[in-house]
């Protein structure tokens, strides 16, 4: 896009890059804000249905679809309160720190092939690392609120998120190993074709590790049953006890943004990303997978695919929240240290061995053939500036490991 502005229109380089960055940021912001509105409404409707209620029914005509907007206006109009003893600066910036972390992680998240704010060749690493920064906002909020309950919430969050980063990292490494790249676009593209190409179905180990990833993701975004930081029956409201109005809603937006983010990440890493379960476009001869020269309409359909998959992930999170009681802090840590981490480590080794000895999968050919198809376009797109220029990327992951280990 930026090249287009520079070469065709002739804008100065700095201006075109800034304009594109601004546009990307604007679009992502709308995805988060619009997504939060939809998800908050969805959460209310889903919770209501699970609890045998109706939920919002009137705002906006039918189904209460404008309810979250009405809530947003109410929050805007609320008095901005700050406790007397609060650290004014930290108290004020804490929600924005949380929100920024959630927002920044979206920059490297592809919504379809090359539909991404900034394609990074360490995309996975970037997303997980930046998402981990969200905890700083929570800690700041807890510390600056001058409330004991907030402090409890912040300390819980710190302990929990730091611990769950470990198994989460291990889970995330597995698709990276399978795809041979840390670039999220490449990882997603590697799973093109039938649903059997999705990394979750690659081997039994990846199937198990997907659930470990989902558990850790739940914990890292503070959703029930791991929502200890805001445990309302114990800590009043945890770290956001003293927040009200718009600042409070920023925490909320950050939470829903992160929920969507980890679900989308799960979709890209394990569930085929923007590739549908059936390669419709390829069967119809429209394009060779979702390749570089695929029409923009197909990329948009890829976006829809990814959004649907992420929405299912978010829906399951809501379902869990409205069903299960909350764990205790020591049980949360036990789940992480005694179950998630060892399982993730064992599965990691398992996937490694599988790659060495059974690179083609149990049904010989199925995975390999698809990989062959993908390699074709990867080489073809090698000339593009944006594509990973790793000389090893053309080789199948198994051979690559063998080569590296040699």
């Amino acid at each position, binding site marked *: 896009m930026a090249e287009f502005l520079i070469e065709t229109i002739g804008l100065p380089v700095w201006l075109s890059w800034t304009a594109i960055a601004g546009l990307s940021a604007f679009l992502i912001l709308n995805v988060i804000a619009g997504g939060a509105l939809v998800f908050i409404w969805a959460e209310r409707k889903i*919770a209501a249905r*699970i*609890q*045998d*209620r109706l939920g919002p029914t009137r705002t906006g005509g039918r189904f209460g679809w404008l309810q979250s907007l009405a809530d947003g206006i109410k929050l805007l109009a609320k008095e901005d309160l700050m406790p007397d003893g609060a650290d004014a600066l930290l108290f004020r910036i804490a929600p924005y720190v949380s929100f920024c972390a959630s927002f920044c992680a979206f920059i490297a998240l592809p919504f379809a092939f090359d539909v991404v704010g900034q394609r990074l060749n360490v995309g996975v690493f970037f997303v997980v690392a930046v998402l981990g920064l969200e905890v700083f906002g929570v800690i700041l909020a807890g510390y600056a609120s001058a409330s*004991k*309950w907030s402090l*409890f919430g912040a*300390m*819980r969050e710190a302990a929990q998120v730091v611990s769950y980063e470990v198994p989460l990292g291990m889970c995330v490494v597995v698709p990276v190993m399978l795809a041979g790249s840390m670039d999220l676009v490449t990882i997603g593209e590697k799973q093109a074709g039938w649903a059997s190409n999705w990394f979750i179905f690659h081997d039994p180990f990846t199937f198990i590790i997907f659930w470990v990833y989902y558990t850790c993701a739940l914990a890292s975004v503070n959703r*029930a*049953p791991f*929502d*200890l930081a805001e*445990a*309302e*029956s*114990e*800590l*009043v409201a945890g770290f956001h006890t003293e927040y009200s109005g718009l600042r409070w809603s920023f925490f909320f937006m950050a939470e829903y943004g992160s929920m969507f983010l980890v679900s989308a990440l799960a979709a890209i890493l394990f569930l085929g990303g923007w590739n549908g379960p059936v390669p419709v476009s390829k069967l119809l001869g429209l394009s060779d997978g979702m390749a570089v020269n695929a029409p923009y309409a197909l990329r948009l359909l890829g976006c829809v695919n990814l959004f649907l998959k992420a929405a299912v992930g978010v829906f399951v999170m809501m379902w869990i929240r*409205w*069903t*299960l*009681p*909350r*764990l*205790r*802090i*020591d*049980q949360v840590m036990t789940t992480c240290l005694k179950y998630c981490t060892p399982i993730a480590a064992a599965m990691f080794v398992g996937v490694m061995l599988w790659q060495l000895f059974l690179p083609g999968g149990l049904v010989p050919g199925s995975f390999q053939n698809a990989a062959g198809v993908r390699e074709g376009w990867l080489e073809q797109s090698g000339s593009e500036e944006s594509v990973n220029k790793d000389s090893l990327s053309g080789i199948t992951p198994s051979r690559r490991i063998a080569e590296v280990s040699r």
Partner: protein
Amino acid sequence: MSQILDEDQRIIEFDVRTDEMLVNMGPQHPSTHGVLRLVLRTDGEIVSEMEPHIGYLHRCAEKIGENLTARQWIPYTDRMDYLAAMNMNLGWALTVEKLLRYQVSEKARHLRVLITELNRIASHLVGMGAYGLDLGTFSPFLYAFREREKLLDLFEEVCGARLTYSYITVGGMTADLPPGWLQRCEAFLDQFEPVIREYHTLLTTNAIFVKRTANIGVLSPEMAIDYGCTGPVLRGSGVDIDLRRDGESIYTAMYDGYAFEVAVMKNGHYPRDHEYPAVPRDAVLGDCWHRFFVRMLEVVQSMDLVRQSIDRYSQCKGPLGEPLKLAEKLPAGDAYLETECPKGQMGFYVVSDGTPIPWRVRARSSAFSNLAVSPELCRGCLIADVPAVIGSLDVVMGEIDR
């Protein structure tokens, strides 16, 4: 403080000591069941000491009772345990009847059993649902309230009120059942019975619920008796006392001819009269899980009793009988009677000097004694266990503060 931490075996693994913090939980806190204030002395997440402070809902109910006639005080008993107002009405009515040596008609007796056992179900439903809330799950609460709503509809039909009924009164009932009520009540029971399995799935056998409640806040039978705990809290510790069977004759006479087994663990198992899940391996007699479970069993037991009383009531011929006059003279003397309310043994004491207005009125609250044991149960537990313990005691502040 450090001594407590050293002695308590449960908290040995927490060897990192931080500064102590004094935290007020309540009176405005989502999980203290009204206006209970708990002062916690915490070391990080560990609660080394917990002290309940009460009195935020004190309304001088006893003093008011000394200025009103016995029947006039009935609405004030509603507001003690407002979740089981029928049982409160019954306690006071029976106490005054004991003083008067008055016996209600057979029909009124069965109606009293019917209505108080229904109210016991309603009260335990709130206890169960609110316990889910304390542990951080919302849905069981609404599932419980959905069924309770139907019960309240039934109560509304008989007396016009949904919370403070004043239905049972000294010398009988304020009114007979409206026509067709018994059929609607039976329909409710038939509909309600399968729902209990849902509750067991959502809470009783839920792995996280068991993790949060099993072996937490273990109350030994000795300690339960020492502190005067009663009701499901006492029976959850394995002490086989239920005033409906072991109480004074004026109260047990109400249940003459009724078949029921006290919901308590005997010889390592609960009475197997109904289908219900097995006791989880981690659960210890006297822990939060058992207290909760006893309530769930009592819901089933009360359903049985309601069914029996519907039969007996409909067989009774003759009038229900009129209640006593509003300003009936009480004989000089005193009377004390304890009844088995959903929360425990509720006692009323009345001293009369021969006028219609009692000279002294006193209420013995079960939730008060049950709450008194909470500092023992919370010593050395985690902050998250405090709501779990308080919730398992199922306290109602209106009854504690009166």
